[in-house]
């Protein structure tokens, strides 16, 4: 049986789980399986405990209705298997876990009777009759254990609490047993492009993917003692560049940092006389603790286990939202990114962003800056390499920040989610500029909590490398191969993956570039990479003319090169950002050019798809943006079909058609969905097949409607203003 493991080699057919578990595991599993159902286990997945006749409440609460089934806890998930016949296949099915499965790392909080928060370690011999599980992907499950055998109930409750809430070692994460038992094809190389292009440009490349100039000696580097080394992020076509660093002292006698930075600038900037603006992010942006605090308050609005409470809170929705501050944090990050963009684009200064550790908000801001300036990063492949470059290789401590291991001394914080939120804001303001869809971002945010992907399991490349090597079953040979999140086929089949592309996106129309380039500089990929071969004078910026640049080149003295940015609290900065935005806004919008977000109150919004998708009462049946997008996809499908027809006739189409040869394959999937299922605002996450079409009628309207002040007196008056009708 096990021989198939060796021979399979590639990832041909998906192997059945039996082939990959040791004989004793098979034994322990088989016993319950005779009388109980269990989910299709993944390779390396082991059932820890289970209980039968568990009642899972359906989401419309109070009715206390539900379905009976088996609740299991494995080394990967908490899983509920209904006694009833399985429902129809979902279109958007995750291959790793189903709608009634919760990956262990996805469990956020567990509540017992009377909504008492359960914490690890305190569970003794008791168990609650009702268990509520809040998930990090915002699902809510409610189980009743009171119908199960006491022994089973106790075991499953303690098992779930133990495996979901208590500290564990990294090796216990499912990825390791999963990867040992799958033969995953070679590791994914993300930044081939960067490697190739930078190697030729006079940089040394460190094994953990960061770039320093060739002329920096090892002694220079060792003075940093592994901390706070400024890293090059991105070069603007004008020649200035963006760097990030962990906090370093800037003013110093015989300052090493500056020497290094000078060398770096010499290597990177086309014109190394440009000044350097430093931005200390910790001065102006919230801390990781603030971010966590705010998010924890924010997410509560969507973790609904009681519709009455939900409707009660509806009237105060806007102020609650305001008070939790989450949208404001998003706005601040975007604003900071716009400030940096302004420095690069308008002022043509180099920018060094810094922060203690250099791998949280630095990652957020630097990736947002690149997303705004460089259309490449708005493609599927580009976004992926941006995340790999800035976050994974950039050393964002995914493991600590998601705190999969429940260790007390680690600072948990949804920094990466915050970044995705910011991207979503940009995307919903400028839809056609992005090749990926909203669904892609939502799925990506869910995947953080699926402990299978190497992408999100480690604190940095070194950490990843050493652990994967150590955990490899074949110590002499290659390190353990784990999938990255980018291999979407691990989670979704092709049809579902089609929903990741945005039907509104069109590739940049190919034009006679030689003519166009001469008068309108473009943010082309080639231009944005540092190039020593690129000797022409700096390109005209979006807002600058040549004369300005010359003045700067001649006028700036080396001494004045280091500028500390003015405190961003000053109204000056925000008004300057506003002017910058307004100047940009008056230009015709180029989806393949610079993209700035509108930061006004009404423009920063809640990511409805992610946060409202599981809440039954607010599904718009037959509506939502998908109703419109699916029509676009439909026509796109027809156009593509016609193109194929024309191709068959040997007709060559001129390439200047937008939409010609689009890579989007969204059409098929959505059309398939339309035919069988009513679309709703939570498409594709929930299909509305089984739902009643009864509208949700807000309860308790009167109590919560407060009309205050002057309006209060007016409220008593009659509709007609005449004095006779006054009450």
């Amino acid at each position, binding site marked *: 049986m096990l021989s198939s493991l060796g021979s399979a080699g590639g990832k041909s057919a998906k192997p059945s789980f039996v082939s990959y578990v040791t004989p004793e595991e098979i034994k322990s599993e088989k016993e319950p399986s005779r009388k109980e159902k269990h989910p299709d286990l993944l390779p390396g997945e082991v059932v820890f405990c289970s209980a039968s006749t568990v009642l899972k409440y359906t989401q419309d609460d109070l009715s206390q209705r539900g379905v009976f089934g088996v609740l299991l806890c494995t080394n990967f998930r908490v899983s509920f298997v209904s006694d009833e016949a399985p429902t129809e296949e979902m279109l958007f099915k995750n291959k790793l876990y189903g709608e009634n499965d919760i990956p262990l790392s996805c469990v956020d909080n567990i509540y017992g009777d009377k909504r008492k928060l359960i914490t690890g370690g305190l569970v003794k011999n008791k168990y609650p009759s009702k268990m509520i599980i809040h998930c990090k992907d915002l699902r809510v499950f409610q189980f009743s254990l009171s119908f199960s055998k006491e022994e089973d109930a106790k075991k499953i409750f303690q098992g779930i609490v133990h495996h979901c809430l208590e500290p564990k070692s990294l090796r216990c994460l499912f990825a390791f047993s999963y990867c040992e038992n799958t033969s995953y094809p070679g590791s994914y190389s993300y930044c081939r492009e960067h490697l190739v292009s930078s190697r030729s440009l006079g940089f040394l490349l460190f094994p953990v993917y960061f770039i320093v100039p060739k002329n920096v000696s090892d002694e220079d580097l060792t003075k940093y003692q592994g901390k706070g080394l400024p890293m090059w992020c991105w070069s603007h076509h004008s020649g200035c560049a963006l760097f990030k660093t962990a906090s370093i002292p800037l003013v110093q006698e015989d300052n090493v940092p500056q020497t290094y930075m000078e060398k770096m600038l010499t290597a990177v900037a086309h014109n190394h006389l440009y000044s350097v603006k430093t931005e200390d992010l910790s001065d102006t942006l919230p801390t990781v603790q603030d971010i966590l605090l705010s998010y924890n308050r924010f997410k509560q609005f969507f973790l609904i286990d009681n519709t009455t409470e939900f409707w009660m809170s509806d009237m105060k929705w*806007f102020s609650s939202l305001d008070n939790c501050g989450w949208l404001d944090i998003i706005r601040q990050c975007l604003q900071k990114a716009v400030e940096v963009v302004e420095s690069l684009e308008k002022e043509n200064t180099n920018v060094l962003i810094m922060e203690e550790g250099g791998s949280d908000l630095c990652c957020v801001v630097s990736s947002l800056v690149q997303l705004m300036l460089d259309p490449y990063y708005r493609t599927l492949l580009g976004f992926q390499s941006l995340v790999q470059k800035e976050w994974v290789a950039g050393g964002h401590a995914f493991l600590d920040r998601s705190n999969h291991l429940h260790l007390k001394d680690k600072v948990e914080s949804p920094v990466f989610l915050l970044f995705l939120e910011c991207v979503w804001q940009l995307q919903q303001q400028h839809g056609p500029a992005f090749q990926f869809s909203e669904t892609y971002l939502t799925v990506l945010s869910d995947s953080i909590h699926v402990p299978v992907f190497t992408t999100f399991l480690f604190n940095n490349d070194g950490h990843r490398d050493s652990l994967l090597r150590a955990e490899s079953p074949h110590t002499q040979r290659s390190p353990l191969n784990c999938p990255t999140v980018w291999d979407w086929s691990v989670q979704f089949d092709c049809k579902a993956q089609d929903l990741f592309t945005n039907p509104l996106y069109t590739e940049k129309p190919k034009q006679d570039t030689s003519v166009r380039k001469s008068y309108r500089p473009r943010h082309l990929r080639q231009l944005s990479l540092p190039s020593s071969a690129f000797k022409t004078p700096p390109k005209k910026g979006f807002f600058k003319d040549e004369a300005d640049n010359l003045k700067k080149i001649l006028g700036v003295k080396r001494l004045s090169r280091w500028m500390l940015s003015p405190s961003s609290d000053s109204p000056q900065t925000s008004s300057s950002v506003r002017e910058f935005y307004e100047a940009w*806004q008056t230009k015709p919008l180029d989806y393949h050019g610079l993209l700035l977000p509108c930061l*006004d109150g009404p423009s920063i919004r809640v990511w*409805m798809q992610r946060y409202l998708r599981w809440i039954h009462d607010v599904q718009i049946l037959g509506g939502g943006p998908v109703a*419109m997008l699916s029509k676009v996809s439909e026509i796109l499908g027809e156009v593509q079909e016609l193109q194929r027809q024309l191709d068959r*006739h040997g007709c060559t189409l001129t390439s200047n058609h937008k939409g010609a040869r689009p890579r989007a394959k969204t059409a098929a999937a959505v059309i398939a969905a339309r035919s069988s299922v009513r679309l709703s605002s939570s498409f594709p996450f929930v299909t509305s097949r089984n739902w009643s079409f009864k*509208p949700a009628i807000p309860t308790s309207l009167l109590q919560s*409607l407060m009309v205050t002040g002057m*309006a209060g007196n007016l409220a008593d008056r009659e509709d007609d203003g005449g004095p006779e009708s006054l*009450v």
Partner: protein
Amino acid sequence: MARAVFSSPNAAAAANILVNFAVLHIATWSRKSQFNSALMCFRTAAASRESLKMEPLAVTLLPGEERVIDKDIMYICPFSGPVKGKVFITNYRLYFKSDPSVTLNVPLGAIGRVEKMGGASSRGENSYGLDITCKDMRNLRFALKQEGHSRRDIFDILFRYAFPLSHGLLLFAYLSQEKYEENGWSVYKPMEEFRRQGLPTDKWRITFINDNYELCDTYPTILVVPFKATEEDLRKVSTFRSRGRIPVLSWIHRENQAVICRCSQPLVGMSGKRNKDDERYLEVIREANGTAKLTIYDARPSVNAVANKATGGGYEGDDTYQNAELVFLDIHNIHVMRESLKKLKDIVYPNVEESHWLSSLESTHWLEHIKLVLSGAIQVADKISGGNSVVVHCSDGWDRTAQLTSLAMLMLDSHYRTLRGFQVLLEKEWISFGHKFASRIGHGDKNHADQDRSPIFVQFIDCVWQMTKQFPTAFEFNERLLMTILDHLFSCRFGTFLYNCESARDTNEVRSKTVSLWSLVNSDSTSYLNPFYTPESSRVLYPVASMRHLELWVTYYIRWNPRIRQQQQSPVEQRYMELLALRDEYLKKLEELQLTDSSPNSSHLSNSSASNAASPTQHINHLHTPF
């Protein structure tokens, strides 16, 4: 910056006006001379003719529109600072133009208030001038030179022409000479609409009892009432309903025969009067389709309903109306709505409130009121779908009642979601049933503080917009139609929204002397169509009335702010139209190829492509079948 708020009239007429100016002028002059102000008119008209020679106007005047005064002025733009330019005032609009492309185009009807700002001795730059408050969510400030009473003439003229009814002048709708291919007055024919609904039936009949507005002066002439109720019954019931607005049918469900009836409050009073006729009348409505319990939706908060007893009104008590259940929908009155919109304006104009935007938005309560109106309508629609008849009223049954019945009808009946159907809905539930447009908007009236004014209709259009947002493929019309309706709600260019009720419209000969807004819309209907429209005839639309899904209609309320990108087309729409064009092009190409190839298998395709030449809004599904 300021968009032209209306589309240009048909080009031929526009060209004519300049050529025929003198002729038209004489024509309008003769009409004006009926009024005392004739002398004044003559003077200003003469002045305008003079200036016309001097400087051509950048905007095309409407037929019947005349220039009254031009003046060099400083516009204090809240977004880009003071700009020098020239203001032109006609009998229809205020038009401002400056060299660096700042233009304002404000129909005088949209002006709510004109005030002098500063005095001759005021210090400070630009402190002397005019302050104009508009009904369409903006304020305008103009500064003039302080010497020589420079603002006197412009203030006087603006005041006269912006508020013609207060000065014995005619509203512009009566001066307009616009001609359109379509006659908008024929859009709504009550008999036709009732026939479409399947009326009369053996339970419901059409009555002409109100032919001379004797039963109720604020109702239309044609009413649908229970078959069993005699004309005498109707008269008796009318004595017990506020302003004689008896329960009449608004809409009937084709399958289950459940009906929406509308009326005003019963005149219960402090003593708790009863009226056997009214009780029996509601019983007859209930029996018409065998509804077990008739639901009466009182749009008001119960407190207000109780308070109304003091002024002779009230609500249907449980004990007196045996087979009825009463539900209060907690929607506040016109005064609350007016203050709410005022607060909203404060936080969005000229600048959008920066700190704590969401809390500020919440404190206006505007979306909260929208939520209540929508959820009330959902309840009505839900009851009807369930086969139960309902009666809807508020106090007088012309504000909240109109909102609820028309929104419920929009949810229930897909016909009202078409371009023509929506016009019928407005004509029927709002215009013919006496929503007091003249009082609520204050057309041509200088009394800006009038307590009767209230943005009830704006609120209704906002509710419709919320529905189109939630169901982007369910409506045949687009956002532009809603904006156009709101613009001409104020503009006084069309007769559609003038006067309080049908009897007043008859007296003032609105239909014969003015043009209907629907003439404009239906003569250029393609620009009001939603390309994503997918007809689904039998579907009931239930919007989600949760604050989570309600959003501020930014493109309307904040449209004067240049930071809000005014897109002619949404990117989604643009992409869709591009793809439609591409599809047509490919189909044509393919057809050509197949003609030359004349391959036998392709005949199917060339057939289908022929039908595709149709307009993009007619969606054709045949292409799904694999070739």
